[in-house]
């Protein structure tokens, strides 16, 4: 048969493999089928040996069967190619493996076929993003100008202004009265450009603040007399 199908980036091939390998998180591999002799050198991880890959393939084949997802096609004469399967799982007309499902993709077909694999998901994801953005973006220039009646307009304006008055009056009491800004300097750039505070002054400030903080922390209460005194009532 001599079909080899992996794409240039070694991306995941048709979705059947995705399901098979879903639990393994492996997505870089290449499947070569050449004359059924060196079949399925399936290397889910780089540097995987062929023997192990065949074992893995066998395992996944069984899983696929359990899932019962695939409709199978017999390839040749009701007999599976050498898959490294045990006798009990030998393929027949109804019992082929999921891996054979993608044997349908011959080399020329693969070039034209758009698999519903990750490439397809990407395309649908891009489309989804595009539609979402188109729904969310409001194109102001394209909006029709709905003309409003004059009385309707006046009604709305009155309604809005009464609402605003209610809101401002209710929160006006709670709004903190900001102190108005003083006049300030006339040449801010000159003020900002002058020399900064000298290091000696900064150190003096730090020292004074440290003294004050330590003094405050040393404030103690000295117990002189009891607060509760028994009366001597004869």
């Amino acid at each position, binding site marked *: 048969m001599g079909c080899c199908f992996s794409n240039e980036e070694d991306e995941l091939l048709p979705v059947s493999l995705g399901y098979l390998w879903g639990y393994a998180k492996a997505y870089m591999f290449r499947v070569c089928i050449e004359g059924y002799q060196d079949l399925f050198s399936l290397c889910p991880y780089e540097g995987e040996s062929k023997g192990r890959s065949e074992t893995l393939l066998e395992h996944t084949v069984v899983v696929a069967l359990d899932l019962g997802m695939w409709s199978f096609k017999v390839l040749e004469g009701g007999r599976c190619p050498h898959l490294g399967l045990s006798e009990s799982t030998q393929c027949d007309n109804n019992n082929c493996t999921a891996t054979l499902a993608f044997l349908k993709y011959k080399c020329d077909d693969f070039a034209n076929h758009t698999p519903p694999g990750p490439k397809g998901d990407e395309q649908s994801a891009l489309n989804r993003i595009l539609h979402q953005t188109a729904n969310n973006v409001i194109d102001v220039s394209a909006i029709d100008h709905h003309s409003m009646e004059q009385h309707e307009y006046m009604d709305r304006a009155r309604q809005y202004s009464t609402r605003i008055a209610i809101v401002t009056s209710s929160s006006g009491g709670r709004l903190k009265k*900001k102190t108005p800004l*003083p006049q300030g*300097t*006339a040449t801010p750039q000159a003020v900002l450009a002058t020399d*900064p505070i000298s*290091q000696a002054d900064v150190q003096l400030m730090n020292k004074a603040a440290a003294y004050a903080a330590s003094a405050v922390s040393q404030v103690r209460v000295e117990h002189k007399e009891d607060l509760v005194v028994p009366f001597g009532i004869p």
Partner: protein
Amino acid sequence: MTTSPITASLDRVPDQVGYLVMNEDGAVMASSGGELENDEAAAGVIMKMVDVALRLQTGTDKQEPFKRLSVIYDEHMYMVTISNQKIYVSKRTNEHHEPITV
């Protein structure tokens, strides 16, 4: 970034790495392309500092509590001043010109 005469002259502050101009509500009106570019978080903090400082009474001049407010760190410092109903903030590198006396 506006190119008004005020912001143009702010470029000439020595050792400056960025500047910011706010209005009395603390909204950023202009900022340099340097460190304080569109830094509304810093603007908010500095606005609060200015509010507190304005309420402090220095006792000497009732009209003007401070001429310039400096926030000094090890490697940089912020200078704040008020002019014409606007608050000007300049961030400069703190070069220690004088030796530190121990």
